[in-house]
């Protein structure tokens, strides 16, 4: 359960990246790219520098994700909607096929191992390490969640959100929509990267599946499930998702994508606010009944 929650938190952090993007009205079908790049970055670090500390592995993985976020962002930040979603998908598929084809370096479909690193140069037993990773993920989720929410309210974040409603006015405020988009894009890549490196460190192995479209789709699904644009929704959504998946895989493992797809349709068509929306509605109702009671 503890490992499960750690994974859910890692995934939740990555989903926050999608959530941030959704606030500008954009969706990416390829953000698993940054998830995978960070994890592979960590794996390469451990391969080239055996015995590297967790901090080094984490930072180098994150830097890899950030740099690729900047590079890909420079290209996709000028696109919106269909092109934005599909170009991201294309980039993730490119990376996925590089991982598969250049197996001399990447281990191909078997992926790469991330042997358990030291933590602050202290060797840890498996149990202690997992417990540490749980608290690290929790702290990261809370910290980054808080930061993302603040960022979305900050001038930079508010400008980013205007992409959703009026880019003409944005230009006539003297701003470059591309640059405004870029800010949020790099943040989303960093969040996905953080999720990816945490996930890789917990699982001890990273495979091309990390970059595959199914992973991106899963992140989008959780973001929509949690409530499009709600940061706490992303974390709650990820937790619910992981728990349900663990128990449902016994009888729905073969049709998991299908179940997700059907739920996605139901949410979009009937509960576009997701979990956060349902929660708000419930709260409003409770508040409403109270007011009437008084």
């Amino acid at each position, binding site marked *: 359960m503890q490992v499960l929650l750690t994974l859910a938190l890692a995934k939740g952090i990555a989903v926050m990246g999608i959530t941030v993007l959704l606030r500008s009205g954009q969706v990416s079908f390829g953000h698993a790219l940054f998830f995978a790049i960070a994890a592979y970055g960590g794996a390469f670090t451990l391969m080239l520098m055996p015995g590297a500390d967790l901090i080094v592995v984490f930072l180098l993985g994150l830097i890899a994700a950030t740099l690729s976020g900047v590079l890909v962002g420079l290209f996709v930040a000028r696109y919106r909607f269909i092109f934005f979603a599909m170009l991201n998908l294309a980039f993730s598929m490119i990376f996925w096929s590089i991982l598969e084809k250049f197996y001399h370096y990447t281990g191909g479909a078997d992926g790469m191992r991330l042997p358990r690193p030291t933590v602050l140069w202290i060797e840890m037993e498996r149990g202690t390490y997992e417990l540490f990773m749980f608290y690290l993920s929790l702290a990261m989720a809370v910290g980054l969640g808080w*930061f993302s929410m*603040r*960022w979305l*309210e*900050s*001038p*930079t*974040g*508010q*400008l980013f*959100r*205007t992409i*959703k*409603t*009026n880019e*003409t*006015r*944005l*230009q*006539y*405020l*003297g*701003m*470059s929509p591309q640059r405004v988009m870029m800010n949020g894009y790099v943040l989303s890549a960093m969040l996905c990267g953080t999720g990816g490196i945490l996930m890789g460190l917990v699982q001890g192995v990273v495979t091309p599946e990390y970059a595959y479209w199914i992973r991106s789709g899963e992140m989008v699904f959780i973001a929509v499930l949690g409530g499009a644009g709600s940061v706490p929704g992303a974390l709650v959504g990820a937790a619910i998702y992981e728990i349900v998946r663990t128990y449902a895989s016994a009888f729905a493992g073969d049709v998991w994508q299908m179940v997700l797809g059907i739920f996605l349709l139901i949410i979009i068509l009937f509960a576009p606010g997701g979990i956060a929306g349902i929660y708000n509605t419930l709260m409003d109702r409770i508040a409403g009944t109270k007011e009437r009671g008084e």
Partner: protein
Amino acid sequence: MTHLLETKGLEIRFGGVVAADNISLQIDAGKNLAIIGPNGAGKTTFLNICTGWLKPSKGKVYFEGRDVTPLSPRQITRRGVARAFQIPQLFTEHTALENLLIAAAARDQLRNPIRALKDTRQRAEMMNLLDMINCTDVAHRQVDELSEGQRKLIDIAVALALKPKLLLMDEPTSGVASSEKFGVMEILVRALAEAEVTAVFVEHDMGIVEKYADEVAVWNMGKIEMRGSPAEVLEHPDVIRDVIGEVV
């Protein structure tokens, strides 16, 4: 003496229609210019060219003596030309105050990623601006819930929030109930004077033009037919025939 805005020989056509034909115009600081003329005469196109949204096939635009023809709307805005639109261009999922705060954040290049927009020190200034246009009561309402007239005012306030030197307005009083037009203009002209902004506005209401413009330019078929003070232009028989006759 350099003019605030000057165009030389602007030309642009859409298909077979000439929207601007050798337009040379000077606008000087402190003199509000009204542009009048029938629909489709090329008035909005002129504003689009001056702000870099459209590129002329011939001719140049100078702002404060510098050639801005090749610049983007973003760059021209940065130099001090703001724009208000015929159809308000606002951030519809934000409140009126937030729209202004976003403009101020863009103007002052605010970067702090933690401090909330609503807590920035520009807030008082923007509330003041809302007060100037009599919109404090709707400060916290989302702009897509506001009336057309209110949205026009917010749109102009957003432009003013940039502290421009020149403000281009496309039919500021369209969508405003005719009983309120003069009130709205009164507010606007006062706000403009207070901010020391020169305004160019496209307008169909001759009463407004007569009262609030320092100068009038008459547009017809992509050309400037005449230019002068409101009194001399509005009484000219050609203008009455071509422009006013059509509107009234």
